[in-house]
């Protein structure tokens, strides 16, 4: 199997670093090439990194509740930049407060994300799904 490249990072003004560091560690451990942008990543930074490394997927984290505002428009920008149909995964604590996740998922799917994940998604799920989404 050829090595897949994944961009990881926490979007917006979000400084939650723990999950990000652990995701990067675990994906590498699982055989991916990881380009970890850390916290407080702008939409442009994800796109630049993905273009530069010819990445296979972008993993966006948002923990602090402003995910809805921060993620809006990312898919369009990807398309414009030529990252056609790149898998765009998003997870963490995406919205403010405890909301029905089906609702939340719908909103993020409408924004063009390939898949959105609820709070507490395990590393196992993240890795398994990434393998599936980056398979040729």
């Amino acid at each position, binding site marked *: 199997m050829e090595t897949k490249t994944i961009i990881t990072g926490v979007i917006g003004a*979000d400084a939650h670093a*723990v999950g990000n560091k652990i995701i990067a*560690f675990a994906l590498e451990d699982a055989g991916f090439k990881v380009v970890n942008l850390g*916290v407080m990543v702008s939409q442009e930074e994800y796109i630049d990194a993905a273009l530069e490394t010819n990445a296979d997927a972008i993993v966006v984290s948002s923990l602090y509740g*402003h995910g809805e505002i921060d993620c809006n428009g990312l898919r369009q920008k990807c398309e414009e930049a030529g990252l056609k149909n790149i898998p765009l995964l998003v997870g963490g604590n995406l*919205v403010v*407060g*405890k909301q029905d996740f089906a609702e939340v998922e719908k909103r993020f799917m409408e924004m063009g994300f390939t898949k959105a994940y609820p*709070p*507490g998604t395990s590393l196992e799920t993240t890795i398994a799904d990434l393998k599936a989404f980056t398979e040729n």
Partner: protein
Amino acid sequence: MEIKNQKLSNDDFFAERKEVLQQWPTGKDVDFDEAVAYQKSIPAKKRFGVKLEQAVKDGTTLIQPRAGVALYKEHIELLKYLEDEGEADLLPTTIDSYTRLNRYKEAQVGIDKSFETGRSMLNGFPALNYGVHICREVTSALKSPVQVRHGTPDARLLTEISIAGGFTSYEGGGISYNIPYSKNFSIEHTIAHWQYTDRLIGLYEEAGVSINREPFGPLTGTLVPPCISNAVAVIEAVLAATQGVKDVTVGYGQCGNLIQDVAAIRSLESMTRKYLDQFSFTDVRISTVFHQWMGGFPQDESKSFGVISWGAAAAVLAKATKVIVKTPHEAVGIPTKEANAAGLKASKQLASMLQQQSFCDMPAVIAEAEIIMAEMTCILNKVEELGKGDWAKGTVLAFEAGVLDIPFAPSKYNAGKMMPARDNNGAIRILSCGNIPLSNELVLFHKQKLDERAAYENRAVSFQMVVDDVYAIGKGFLVGRPNGVK
């Protein structure tokens, strides 16, 4: 930029102030003398410092939530609910993340969108955008003292507006609101910004208005060894006192091992006193705050009640002056007011029920506190040495050198070389010191503790242990054991 631990001169301060007040239109409503008069009109029982001082005297532990929503009327309702139904002794106003990063335009978008959708689209209360008068509407509507809680590296204008707005306590510090909360802010800069905040509060103090100041104890909330967070708290207390602050609450985030937690509060209090006295700040009042578990929470609400209650119990047994309370929604999102009140009530039950019990003088606690104090001494001596006696300079150099090093911090100014892990009893130890300057004896102590665990778990000491420990409480454990080990 050249930083010094020295009281800002009036010239420098007021020159800077002019700029600060222009950072956003609401700055122009701040008038120092008018604000002093307003603060003086606040009754004593609504002053943060007064209530803390009484609690120190009574040996009680006060409870305080976190809370903030985008719309100010809802924010007032929320806080009223938390003091009435939740029985909160002290109230917060948690600031949203855009304000924290001085992105006031985005905060305004958040306010506007919240008005439109009727849902709070911000993760806190945008006090700065609202300005002095709305802040006064908030603080005056409540029976209890209110504090601003945030995570803002450059909080100068927010401080101006908050204190003029009637808040009587203010959280943060140049280290504790930088390293865990930002990526690219240099320590020089944030120390300078917080000297401004502290000097402003010093000026209020000199004008006869005492404002309580609270360094943010838990830092990243994730496996922070007590010696590190305690050292940071002492440094921030000294820097604040240097600018004229007279009332500090030093803080600590629960690690989960009761002996270590009680020892941490014990050593935090006595070391803060010792160093403040050493710098001749003998008139600074000290109180302590214990944060219920600050790391990842269990998804399940009942299990969260278990974690919350254990935090409240530990706070009381440690005789902390106040405890910051989590909610059963912690793992999922900003809590509803009901969930927030639920966490408060569980904590209140234990705060009052265990009031008569203290663990501060247990031999095991004293022994653990001796270790923490020895570690703090190693670190603080080195800070002093690096700064050639100047703690502000020393702090900058200490972060550069990794002498101060906070695990899991997002800041690029943090070395990130020190690695913590739990020992076999769940106490947080240091797996790899990086450049934290512990004595050989102390290094050996940590090594022995972790070797003990490694032997028990039949695996080598490694980063996997750290990862397992990060998830442990969320999964119901304190020590992250490999599969099959009890």
